């Protein structure tokens, strides 16, 4: 049933609604078209990065290099885009290709090298950050105005960012999940040996899942470029942690096999709105870091409070 399928997303959806309600009560300005666009723009990079993380988490892995890929594409796009439309489109494609290549490399090492994803992506995190720093040692660069407007503008209450997210979902996510590959990804996350026995090529599936993750992370990087209109090779660190957190908060299971996109997407907007709320309350920036970490930890604990009510701890250990 549909309800059953999306039940794991409920915490994130309710969380986002409650938080948005609170924010609107505190700051009615948020309900203006401008406020809505601003909030959505804040969260869209993380939302797409979360999709990138989710596709990898579904295989039972984790991609700690998501943030580095976001930053790498951001650095490439902002450095080479220039102002000429044709050149800019070429650079857009180039940065998408770079992100995809980075994801593919993760996938090849994980699948064919048979090394644990955590340590592979932790190492490639260094590599991609290094490459990004070579492209753009200092933050800066420039982005054509039309590009920034096309992704971050709005049409009344409808931010273009949501259209971009929708485009990513329709062009990348849905075809991926609805295809044979998508089912295979879920299958190997659920039961690798079972998937292998029923004829799924586990290694190839893993490789493509990471590649898709790279492509999605590159999309996130492009949106970030439009949003910040500059490039920074070290901007990505927060996206790694927050994308994993959004995936978990959105009801997907680290370890693979279970999760839908809805919850993680809401989780991503929840986390970024949380940062805006903290910012709006006017507390010192030092506290924002602290509260962000603290809230993340508290939110995850609350989402897992039911563990304490478990009668038989053995069920927890086996799940």
């Amino acid at each position, binding site marked *: 049933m549909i309800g059953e399928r999306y039940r794991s997303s409920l915490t994130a959806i309710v969380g986002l609604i409650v938080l948005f309600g609170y924010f609107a009560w505190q700051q009615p300005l948020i309900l203006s078209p401008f406020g809505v666009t601003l909030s959505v723009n804040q969260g869209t990079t993380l939302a797409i990065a979360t999709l990138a993380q989710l596709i990898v988490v579904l295989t039972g892995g*984790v991609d700690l290099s998501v943030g580095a890929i976001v930053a790498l594409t951001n650095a490439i796009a902002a450095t080479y885009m220039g102002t000429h439309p044709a050149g800019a489109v070429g650079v857009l494609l180039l940065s998408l290709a770079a992100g995809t290549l980075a994801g593919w490399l993760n996938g090849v*090492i994980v699948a064919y*090298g*048979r*090394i*644990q994803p*955590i*340590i*592979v992506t*932790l*190492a*490639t*995190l*260094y*590599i991609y*950050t*290094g*490459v*990004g*720093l*070579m492209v753009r*040692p200092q933050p800066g660069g420039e982005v054509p105005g039309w590009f920034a407007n096309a992704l971050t503008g709005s049409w009344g209450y409808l931010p273009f960012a949501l259209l971009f997210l929708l485009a990513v979902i329709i062009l990348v996510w849905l075809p991926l999940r609805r295809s044979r590959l998508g089912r295979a990804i879920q299958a190997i996350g659920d039961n*690798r*040996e079972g998937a*292998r026995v029923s004829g799924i090529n*586990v290694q190839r599936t893993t490789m493509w899942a990471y590649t898709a993750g790279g492509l999605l992370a590159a999309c996130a990087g492009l949106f970030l470029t439009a949003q910040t209109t500059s490039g920074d090779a070290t901007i990505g660190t927060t996206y*790694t*942690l927050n994308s*994993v*957190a959004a995936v*978990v908060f959105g009801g997907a299971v*680290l*370890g693979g096999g279970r999760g839908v996109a809805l919850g993680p997407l809401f989780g991503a907007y929840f986390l970024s709105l949380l940062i805006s709320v903290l910012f709006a309350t006017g507390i*010192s920036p*030092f*506290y*924002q*870091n*602290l*509260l*962000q*970490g*603290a809230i*993340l*930890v508290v939110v*995850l*604990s609350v989402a*897992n*409070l039911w*563990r*304490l009510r478990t009668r038989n*701890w*053995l069920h*927890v*250990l*086996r799940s």
Partner: protein
Amino acid sequence: MALTGTRQWPTVPAWLRQGVVISYVLLIVLFVVAALINPHYASWANVRNLLQIGAFIGIIAIGQTMVIITGQIDLSVPWNLTFSAILMATLCSQGYSTPVAMGAALLSGTLVGMFNCIGTAIFRIHSLVWTLGMNAFLEGVTLVYTHAQPPKVEIPSLVRTLGSGTLAGMPVPLLLWIVLGGIALLVLHRSRFGRYLYATGNNEAALFLSGVDSRRVYLGAFATSGLCAAIAGILLTGYSSQTYLGMGNDYLLVPIAAVIIGGTNIMGGAGGYLGSISGSLIVVLLQSVLSTIQIQQAGKNIVFGVIIILLLLLYGREKRLSG
């Protein structure tokens, strides 16, 4: 065995195929190569220097090895280390005696470790997420506590001795590493807690059924990791005679890489500290060789990441799915 049709590889004795053995062979090969390229590497002064820096990584690797053996990971080391060090320096500047300040740092590190255990063992949130979140939280705590300006204080001589002094020609951190490493080996291989660590990583449900509360095992592992991070923080403060906000940044990947290179399985249940020792020395040697090559930081990041992956491809691979 007359299995027709299957290719028979020349058999390598099982003990030679162990990660620990390979890592020591690798360490020796690397060292010999480095010494052949640059004879300076074989000098006692350089070896002593490498051992001293290796001690910082090796001590962190004690806790990390235990955590990884249980099948978890501790990504909160960098800011736990930094916060402990800055807490100690601040207390010193406020006129507390050095042992009290050091004790407070050790306590804070251990408490952070215990807190890591709450999320991981009780709420069953994957330690990857939880400790990464804790790391961000501790970064915030440190920034608030110091207003982004670590105290500029005279580091007490006791701390400086611990971090950079020598005793009978040996660096003090190295001696400390030998003592702590010895304890770690005893705990892992000769104590009940050590056996529980492996059991938790192998089959937690079975351990639970045999009447052991695995949450306590996690508590021990994470608390040790926090304590080790705090010890490393104190030693690093003494070594560089100052505290600064980025002092923990290099200690996220490197100790984990050391543990994995030493043959401990990141999924838990297998491995040991003996390998982590050679792993620590391998990464230190690599870093030192890289630092003598004239490339910028970005290049070093890339080369280090590539080497870690190459080393793991060499022998850190998992078994094929059966078939």
